[in-house]
């Protein structure tokens, strides 16, 4: 790698998380299976690995690929994930079923490839009373081998480690109820909405406690979510509805997770993932104890990186920012270079920025554009930023 680097990858990430300027802007990425295979082939990397395609068709990036590409953060699979199917409620057509009984199907794309999507939400017709009888997942213990995987990644690499454990409350309710039904509930059946979020939050908080005791010392960034709360144009719900109805349940999980993480790793940070136009929520989220926000969907209204840095930069770390709706799939390598330059110029001064694509890199992104992203971080991301 080029550039004048003085920090290990993890030191670089920790500096950014602590709002100090590292030697260079740290970089992260999550990716779907086809894009990952294309990138590996393009880079001539031949690592043997058993690609376990998960939710949203994503795959974990092998540490050797992360290293060769130049990532500073590695996202390890959820330490609770035992990869087991629960056949009881399963539609035989489904590719897999998760612990919340959400069924995932392979949806073929015209032109080849597929995407894992959810259908047939398990609580579509449930009432408040039904919630008591639902086969909720037990707040389980970590999967076999998870403790070793986290420890070995910490010992054998200098990558910063990100993972998700308990995860979402609001968005999981969307999955379990079905999107249209859930958003109708929020207006017409707030009693059900509140009861469902309370139930999920209780389980998620306990899962965080259980797993963080075992792997917390190795986690630098705990991803709390995704809690997508924005459309392309505006938030999905009003800030008032967020505060009145949703916030107490999220607060419970965030506070529990942060305390459990800090007990094991005093430098650990919590990060929310929330897609879309979410500017009106950010002040509330900071108040709720959030350290970092992903993905900064720059193509959505109000997600102006210069303005966000100006308003929240001293209190919030930004993760993401490289457009995946136009630039990465449809732009040229030069477009990517200019995009990276802009995000670094806007978000990197003073630290507090980890550059990453806004979304899991999809199969329509050419490896050349990912290489252009990496090279632009090298070209523009060395501190002090002078762009």
């Amino acid at each position, binding site marked *: 790698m080029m550039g004048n680097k003085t920090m290990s990858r993890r030191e670089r990430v920790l500096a950014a998380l602590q709002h100090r300027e590292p030697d260079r802007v740290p970089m992260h990425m999550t990716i779907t299976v086809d894009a990952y295979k294309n990138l590996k082939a393009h880079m001539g990397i031949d690592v043997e690995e058993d690609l376990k395609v998960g939710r949203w068709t994503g795959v974990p990036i092998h540490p050797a690929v992360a290293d060769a590409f130049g990532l500073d953060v590695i996202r390890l699979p959820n330490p609770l994930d035992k990869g087991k199917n629960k056949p009881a409620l399963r539609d035989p057509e489904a590719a897999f079923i998760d612990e919340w009984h959400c069924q995932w199907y392979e949806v073929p794309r015209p032109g080849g490839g597929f995407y894992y999507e959810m259908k047939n939400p398990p609580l579509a017709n449930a009432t408040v009373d039904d919630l008591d009888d639902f086969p909720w997942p037990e707040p389980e213990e970590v999967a076999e081998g998870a403790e070793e995987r986290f420890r070995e990644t910490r010992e054998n690499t200098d990558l910063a480690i990100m993972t998700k454990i308990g995860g979402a409350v609001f968005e999981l309710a969307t999955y379990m109820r079905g999107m249209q039904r859930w*958003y109708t509930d929020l207006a017409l059946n707030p009693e059900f909405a509140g009861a469902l979020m309370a139930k999920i939050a209780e389980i998620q908080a306990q899962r965080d406690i259980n797993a963080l005791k075992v792997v917390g010392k190795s986690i630098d960034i705990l991803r709390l979510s995704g809690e997508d709360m924005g459309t392309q144009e505006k938030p999905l719900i009003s800030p008032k509805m967020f505060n009145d109805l949703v916030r107490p349940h999220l607060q419970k999980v965030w506070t529990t997770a942060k305390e459990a993480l800090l007990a094991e790793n005093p430098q650990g940070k919590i990060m929310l993932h929330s897609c879309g136009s979410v500017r009106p929520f950010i002040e509330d989220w900071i108040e709720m104890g959030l350290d970092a926000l992903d993905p900064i969907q720059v193509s959505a209204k109000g997600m102006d990186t210069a303005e966000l840095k100006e308003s929240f930069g001293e209190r919030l770390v930004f993760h993401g920012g490289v457009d995946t709706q136009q630039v990465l799939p449809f732009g040229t390598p030069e477009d990517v270079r200019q995009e990276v330059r802009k995000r670094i110029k806007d978000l990197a001064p003073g630290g507090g920025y980890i550059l990453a694509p806004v979304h899991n890199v999809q199969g329509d992104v050419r490896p050349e554009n990912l290489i252009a992203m990496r090279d632009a971080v090298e070209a523009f991301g060395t501190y002090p930023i002078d762009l």
Partner: protein
Amino acid sequence: MDYKALQSAVIEGDVEGATRESQRAIAADADPKDILNSGLIPGMEEVGRRYEESSYFLPEMLAAAQAMKAGLAELRPLLGEQDVEPVGRVALGTVQGDIHDIGKNLVGIMLEGAGFEIVDLGADVLPEAFVDAASDVQAIGLSALLTTTMPAMEQVIEVLKEAGVRDEVKVVVGGAPVTDSFAERIGADGYSPDASSAVRTVKELLGI
């Protein structure tokens, strides 16, 4: 007749209220077309206005849609009896490979709330299904959330051309990654960034 209470029930997402007020108007011998045009439609127009100015969000819009549909359910049999035609017919679908349908559903709600009849083809719709629908409608709305399924929109337009029906319908596209310039490039007739403005786009294209 005054339809303020019916309009308010729609705007507030009061499902029972919309049913009650529609029944009351019918019992008072109001013209069902008038109940629709002066009660339900102005109610949904206000909902659209509030959504665009961001005092309403997705839940309030979906609640209003339920109220509107409840009112419409009371009127439908009477509108049928009188052979009242919708202002237009629009087929909607999420393109092949894409199952994300909330945006498409919102467009359907707002069009229905403006007096259109919707032929909902669903999600993950084959191009041929749009061709089959083309003879019954004046416009087709295509939706996509994923960048990887956007090419399927262009394919629908190609298939409509091959079947010789492209000029018989207006094609409107939308969805998170879709833009005005993309719509122009693939030869669509219109593009809308959200459900409320989709009604304006369709009306303009159909000269309504």
